[in-house]
């Protein structure tokens, strides 16, 4: 994987409306080979629509680009053959067994040595013993693993995963992410959407989308850097009250309570420092500056884009 390798996804100016609702606005993305690219944003921000446009399930109203070098407007057949797409909702067949689901996928992709591929996938899944069980009887975590191995079966070079870990327990989520990193190490590129902030930190690169607009993209450090935010942390009790007081103070853009700590974030470092220290002194608590975390940045971005959206609506 040289730096000169062509990006696996390169799109620009993608737009999509449903009726009078402009769901994706001027989307531009670049995903490099072997990268885990996190696609973040609140519910209804246009993540699913964007992914569907990338794999040919939706036709963009305007814009252009390539996916694995194939034109997303004209070569959706080629894209479908080479991309593994995992839908947000489990979309394999509940009334087929695990083996039958995998076998169907293998046949559709006309895989040579189909049986072998299916057995290997079952083995890898750890479901070889339960292969005859109906997919509908699996728990959420197992369904998600089945879906991943089914969309991996034809050995795609690019995975598009739409909120793969929604509703999955933490252990299963951790296992899932380890699997993604193993795949990335093999050179497979992954575009994964999520709204779990802890998952954001496990991606090589991130993009944040809200109200159909892509607000920022880059590595986690670049994203944090780009927003020029300072954050202070206050430890102690009755932080909710303190949080109330700080709201609207000069320099304070947002306050977030994290268990035993209150994070106060703002753009204006000097004003923020003054407000925080004054409030902390009054409450008899200690405040210290900390590195702004990715989560602070995203909450900031979400609030800002929400306000901007409301302004636009008026």
């Amino acid at each position, binding site marked *: 994987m040289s730096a000169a390798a062509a990006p696996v996804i390169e799109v620009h100016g993608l737009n999509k409306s449903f009726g009078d609702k402009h769901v994706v606005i001027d989307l531009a993305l670049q995903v490099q080979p072997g990268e885990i690219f996190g696609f973040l944003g609140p519910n209804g921000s246009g993540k699913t629509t964007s992914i569907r446009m990338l794999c*040919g399930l939706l036709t963009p109203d305007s814009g252009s680009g390539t996916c694995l070098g194939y034109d997303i407007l004209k070569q959706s057949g080629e894209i*479908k053959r080479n991309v593994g797409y995992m*839908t947000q*909702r489990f*979309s394999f067949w509940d*009334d087929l067994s695990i083996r039958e689901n995998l076998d169907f996928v293998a*046949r559709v*992709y006309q895989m040579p040595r189909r049986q072998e591929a299916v057995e290997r996938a079952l083995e890898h899944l750890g479901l070889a013993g339960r292969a005859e069980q109906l997919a509908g009887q699996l728990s959420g975590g197992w369904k998600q693993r089945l879906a991943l191995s089914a969309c991996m079966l034809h050995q795609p070079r690019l995975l598009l995963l739409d909120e793969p870990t929604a509703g999955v327990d933490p252990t299963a989520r951790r296992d899932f992410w380890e699997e993604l990193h193993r795949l990335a190490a093999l050179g497979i590129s992954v575009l994964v959407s999520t709204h779990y902030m802890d998952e954001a930190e496990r991606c090589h690169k991130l993009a944040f989308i809200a109200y159909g607009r892509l607000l920022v993209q880059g590595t986690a450090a670049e994203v944090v850097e780009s927003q020029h935010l300072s954050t202070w942390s206050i430890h102690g009790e009755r932080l909710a009250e303190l949080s109330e007081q700080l709201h609207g103070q000069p320099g304070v853009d947002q306050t977030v309570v994290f268990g035993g700590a209150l994070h106060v974030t703002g753009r204006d470092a000097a004003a923020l420092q003054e407000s925080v220290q004054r409030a902390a002194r009054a409450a008899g608590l200690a405040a210290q500056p900390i590195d702004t975390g990715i989560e602070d940045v995203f909450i900031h971005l979400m609030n800002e884009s929400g306000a901007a959206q409301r302004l636009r609506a008026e």
Partner: protein
Amino acid sequence: MSGRDFFSVERWWSVVRKEFLQLRRDRITFAMIVAIPLMQLTLFGYAINSDPKHLLTGVLVEDHTEFTRSFVAGMKASSYFDIVEELPNEEAGRAALARGRLQFVVTIPPDFSRRLLRGERPALLLEADATDPSATGNAIEAALELPQSVAAKDLVGPLAALAGGSPPFEVRLHSLYNPEGITAYFIVPGLMGVILSMTLVLMTGLAITRERERGTMENLLAMPLTPLEVMSGKMIPYIFIGLIQVSIILVAASAMFHVPFEGSLLTFYCAALFFIAGNLAVGISLSSLAQNQLQAMQLTMFYFLPNILLSGFMFPFQGMPAWARVIGEVLPLTHFHRLMRGIMLKGNGWSDLWTDVWPIGLFIVVVMFVALRFYRRTLD
């Protein structure tokens, strides 16, 4: 698009297999396949056209002789008639028929035996309540044959001369309320098409909308499957279902209703296959037009109604107004009725059947074109 992109047998077969597997687990659909033909055939068949026996009969005998007793005994022996009443006069007989208390009244006039012996070929009157002609049809036939057998049995010795040639007396039939009848044989072959239309259109109508509602359509669309592969792949299992249904009905038609089968079995199955394909094409295009399963069912009913009413199943085709006949000619069911009656009752071959085969073929082509045209390749 290269040929491989447009249709691959391997991919198509993957869909066929998947549908078979899913069908195998869908017990209700499976039960429908067997139960609907039998249920409909029993309900429709017996309600519309049956061969009931032991029909309630009254007699008005004004001439008590050996011959008349023999005739009444012969009626009982045919098992079609149960003599339940001796009527005092003609008015009582008419009243009983009008109220439906009796289905037949037999009147033997006073001088019957005397005229019989004189060789004057006297007549008996058989009055029938033919409101439901199919219910009384077979009984009437049996009664009309009685003179011959009674004569053969009773006119012996010196009277044998009377038995030769034409029957010595006749049964004059008087059908009341519905003089022209529809025969049993007419209805059962028609039912075959009705049952196939109903089950097949409905089942394939649900085929694609079901995927859409369960969220699995998104997955199918994301795979490299073409519309033709998905649609034709989904149709295959139902072709087998259709053939099973046809066989069930054929056996039942012969066992329960004694419908004759004059034509060739091969011709019969070929015609059935053609008609099945027509219904599946309709079902699959309704499925690609409908947004959900409920809509698919509504569309199925919408299609089903003119089929029942205008195909000649419910009402005689020639009796319909011209506009209705035009619509009827478009529907495959109309032609299938003719094919089935032609094959089963008349023993027609392909040269006779051709005029009803090509309209079904044309219908399939047009409908499949519509289905492919409206199949959504994306989620837009």
